[in-house]
Every structure is written in C-alpha cells, then in structure tokens.
C-alpha cells in the first residue's frame, strides 16, 4: 500500500477521534500519537486538513486536549436544530439560541477572556440569573410600555425572555421543560455531551467547567458566524 494511502487512513482516524468529542489523547495512545504527528509532520497536517475539508469540516485546533473541528454551514456534521429540540416555534428557537449566547457570554465576559487559556465556570442558576438581569436592565431602559398588539413579531427578545418563567413547580418536583431554567440546563448538558463542558457538582442547579474546546468553538466559529449573520441582518432594533 502506498504511503499516501496510509497517511490518508491515519488522517481520517484523527478526524474520527475529533467526532468522538469526549475522548482525549491522554485516554487513547493511538489518538495521542496522531496528535503528536500532526504537530511534528507538516505534510501529515496537510492531509488531515484536506480529509476534514472533504467532509465539510475545518480543523480549528489540535493540541493536548485533542482535535477541535468545525462543521461548514450545511455540513452533515453540523447540529440540526430539529435534532437539538424538535418542533420549536420561532420564539423557542430564539430563546434556545439566546441561552447559548448567554452561556458563552457568562463564561467569557470580555473579548480578552475569549483569548485567554484558563478554565472558566458556569452554573444553571448563574446563567439563568445573568440572562434575566440583562433582560431586566433593558426593561428599565425601555420602560414598562406594552408591545404593539398589532405587530407581535416586533416584540423584542428581552420581553420574550422576561415573559418566560424561570422555573415552575409541576407538582412532582421537576421544573417545566419550557422554563428558562430547564432550557439552560438542557443547553449545558448538550455542551457537556459534546465535550465542551464538564460537570463538576450539583451546586446552583448544576455547575460546569468550560473547557478549552468550548472556548475555541465559541471564538473561532460560533461568535464569528453569529456576528456575521447579525451584521447582515442590520441592527435596526
């Protein structure tokens, strides 16, 4: 077999490791070897880039915590909203999206902290409070005036967030699934499944560490793309 074919196989294996998000090089000698090879062998790193590119993935980072991949828009490897949570209305989709922006903004309060390399922490209660406070500050600025009944689609996002309850007693000790607390918890759990966060305790409704991988995805991918879409939409609010 040709060396090129072997390289392609090894590169595909490395990309495959990247799609097993909670696996770390320290936990798998083959993974660790490929990460080292990526750092040492520029030709191999090229092959990895092309293999990933062919699958609609970009290599964001390769280091001690593994390979971090970014799906191109529309790639089969991108999270689909319908898989994240089925049958969402526009308002629900917005709230789920806002909560993800809120988690990231909570973990990385400034642009400088996004470029840093330390581990940050967040919790279900902390993120919920953070978003509610941000929305409440906007209410203070705009006053209590009611939204226009003839144009419900013009209702601002902060009103929607405040209208939604933080928690609700369902009678059996659970919080309602559509409360913001439940949505934050859902988001944090999904991020933990993706190896972006790791759960450290049950304090504050669930406390998590934000790992390197999360910072890279937020900085290199999510924030940039979302900002691009936002800028294209025009900030007529």
């Amino acid at each position, binding site marked *: 077999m040709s060396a090129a074919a072997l390289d392609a196989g090894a590169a595909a294996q490395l990309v495959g490791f990247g799609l097993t998000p909670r696996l770390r090089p*320290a936990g798998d000698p083959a993974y660790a070897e490929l990460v080292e090879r990526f750092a040492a062998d520029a030709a191999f790193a090229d092959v990895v880039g092309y293999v990933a590119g062919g699958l609609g993935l970009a290599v964001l980072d390769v280091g001690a915590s593994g390979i971090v991949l970014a799906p191109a828009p529309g790639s089969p490897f991108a999270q689909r909203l319908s898989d994240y949570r089925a049958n969402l209305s526009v308002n629900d989709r917005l709230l789920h999206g806002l909560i993800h922006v809120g988690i990231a903004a909570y973990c990385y309060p400034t642009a400088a*902290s996004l470029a840093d*390399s330390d581990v940050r922490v967040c919790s279900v209660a902390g993120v919920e409070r953070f978003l509610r406070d*941000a929305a409440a500050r906007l209410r203070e600025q705009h006053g209590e005036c009611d939204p226009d009944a003839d144009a419900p689609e013009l209702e*601002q996002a902060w009103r929607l967030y405040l209208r939604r309850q933080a928690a609700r007693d369902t009678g059996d000790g659970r919080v309602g699934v559509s409360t913001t607390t439940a949505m934050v918890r859902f988001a944090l759990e999904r991020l933990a499944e993706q190896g972006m966060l790791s759960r450290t305790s049950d304090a504050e409704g669930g406390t998590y560490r934000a790992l390197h991988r999360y910072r890279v995805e937020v900085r290199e991918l999510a*924030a940039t793309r*979302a*900002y691009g879409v936002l800028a294209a939409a025009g900030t007529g609010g």
Partner: protein
Amino acid sequence: MEPRPLVEESFTRRVKALTRTLPVHELDASKGQREGDWTRDDLRALALAAVDAVIDEMGLAYGATAADVRGRLATLVRAAAPGGPPGHAEQVAAAVLDALLNDRERREAFSISYSDWSGPQHRRASLVFKLLEEVEAPDGTVVLRATDEAVNLFVGALDRDVEDAQAAAEAVLESQLRRGRIDQAVASAREARLRSVQFAARINRVLEATRRDLRQVDWGENVPRLLDDAFTHLRTRLDVERALLATLRDTLDEVADAGEAGSAEGAAQAAELVALITDCQSRHLELHERLVGARSDFLAAQDRQRFAPAAQVRVVDLSEELLKPLLRLPAATAEPPATTFLVGALGAIAPRLTRLTELVDDLLQPRRVAEEIDARDDAPDLVALDVDPWRFAPHAWVAALDVLDPVGEEPVRLSDLLADARRVSEDVAELVALTALHAFAPEGAGDLVATDDGAALEDEVFAGADLWVTRPTPLAAPATTGALA
C-alpha cells in the same frame, strides 16, 4: 528643566505590590457575612497556604487540583479550630479558593485602582491581575496554576522582577553559605526554586500559546528576545547552581568534620539544601529542553496554521456585540443569529445512523405522554411544513422549483407536472406533489394555488385528485412569511 516626579520609581512598584494583596484582605474581611462562626479562621494565612500548595506542585506531574488544595486547607482549618461544626472546614477551604480564583466575578482578572504619581500628573490607574487560575492538563484533568503575581505575593519579593529576584536570591544564598548560615540558606534556596518555577511557567505559556494560535504571539520580536534571554539566563543559572552544589557539599563535609553541638541539625539542613538545588537544576534542564524545541515548534505551528481557517481580525465581545444587540432585536430578526450561534457552539456532531434493530425497538415503545404543554407559548409564527427539509437534497429542491417555475395563470394538471419531474428523479416528483398539496391547503402560504375539479390522479406512486395548479398574478397583498420561499 524636566519637572521631578513626586515619587521615586520604586514607590509605584511597592504600591502595586501592596494593592495585589487586597483580594486576600477582602476575603478575610468577609468573615462576618458568612453563615456560622468564622472568627477563628485566619483566611489571609489560608490564602497564602493555598498559593503555597499550588506552587509546590507546579511543574511536577500536572499540578495540584482544586480538590487537592481544598483538602490541604481543610486540614489546616481543623488543626486551628478542632471540634468545629461538620463541613465547616470544607466550606472555609472552598471560600478561600473561590476568592483566589475570583469566582465572584466569573474568574475575570481582579481590577483594582490605585494612585499613580510617577507621571507628570497624578492619575488613578487600574491594576489588572490574577492570583490563581485553573488550566487543563494534557490528561484532561483540570489543575491550578499560580500566576507570577501570586508567586511574588507568596515569596514576598514585592519589589523585584523575576530574573533579578532569582539572581538576588542566589547571591544571598551564596553569601549565607560562606558565613555558615545554613538555616537562612534553606529559606533562600526555597525562594530560588520558586523563581525557577515562575520562570518556567512564563516560557511555557508562550510556547503553549504558540502551539494554539500563532497570531496571539509576537514571534517577530518579543518572543525571540524572550527565548534569547531565557537561554542566557539558564546558562548562568546552571553554572551558578553547579557552583552552589559544590560549595554545599564542602559545607556538609565541614559540618561533619567540626562535630560541634547542633551539627546534626545543620547537616540535615545542608542535605535538604542539596536536594532543593538539585531540584532547581532539574527544572532548569527541563526548561532548557523545551527552549531547544521552541524554534522547531514555531516552524511547525507556522506550517500548520497557514492552513487554518482565515485569520480572524478581531475577537467578538460576546456581551456587548452579541448578547445585548440580540436582546434588543425583534424575535424574528434575532432568531437567525441566535440559532447560528447555537449550532456553532455545539461544534461537529457525528450523525447518528439508525440501526434497524434500534428502530424496531423504538417503534414498539409505548407512546410517551408529552411532558408538558406550555400554554403560554402559543404563537405559531411559522407554520412548519410536513416535509423534513433535510430529507431532500438541495439539488432536488432546485429541480422541483424548475419544474414549477413555468406555471403561470393558465392552470396546469398535477399529472403533467409529475411527468416533468420524473424526468429528473422520484424525489423531485415527490417534492412537486407535496408542493401542490401545500398549495391546495386553504392556508397555503406560497404563491401557487391548487384547485380540485374532481379528476382523479392516475399515478403509480401518488393517489388523490389530479389538481389544477396555477400561479395567479399577485394582488397588492402584504407579503406572507412564506414557508416555501
């Protein structure tokens, strides 16, 4: 004539050093607000003990974890106040670590203002610093690291910079050895080792940052200079320490020969010192190896990162540039950027393939009762199509739109449209059929209208009416939020 500054240069340095102790004092002052009786807990001393515990493990294995440090602090708390209420020691330990990490401010750097008279005019300046931070170790564990500021605070070298302090520490050590002051020499050697750790951490950070992202590191000027300085520094240190070890071994021999009272203690201290210096030396050697590899690391990073996604000009400020603008926008406008963020934050996801056995199991599951219906959220802004948009490839959509495009005011039979579509593929035919059905629905949102005149559709795949499909000239009607558009 140049006006003389109001204060000497070292004054500002000392003010800054003093300012950096503020978080520790604030921690101690917060005792009164804690639940329970904290009066016997010396939180200042515990904070220093925490930094001590972190520095002890830095550079060795991966470092101390938060749990390690909390455990050590809890032991100290219990020793100071035996018989405290259960869980108290752990609470105190956690509070100390939280304060050093600045958990209250989501682990941002401390930012404290101080008076600066060093310029032509007095100004209020802010000192931005961290004491401890958590970092990921290569094995995935998360360990604590003390910043340069914390090391300075801890060793009390408040008015020096890293390299000078190290040189000074070693000069002191040498003179102490010559005068036989071994106990002081042990203390100085500890300080010298801390300096070594601190220096290593600085170099490691640059190398780590380089591997992660070349753009964040100034390899044009600052880093090469830092590496050169480090090389020179290390060469001198290794020489000095070799000389120190030789001196020490002589001292040990002298102490043994003298055989005077208290010499057993002196010998033990000298032996401890030898171990310390040896440790210092091995840390320097380790750093030396990293430095030798640094340039090739840089070249490899350069090669690799050339193919990385296009360099981002600027990092987005999440709170100011995304969260706040999004909260201000109407829901429909804010939704696309917000969900774009969601999709991006979750990264690459391996598509789940359905296995037949799992599918059968799933289908045989009793129907789940919907967990809860939210009566408050009842605004169906967009009517979801009964078509999974992902089921059809983009080219099928394009082909289907091509088939439907010629439809104008003259009605066309669905059967004719299906025949056209089948020339492309069955998927396209299905899309055309579904679109026609959608147009037939009274709330149909697209620009097509379908009517049923009772004619049956004769088709191998589809059953129902052979609809007439037309595209009426649009009236001056308000644009609908078309689901098919």
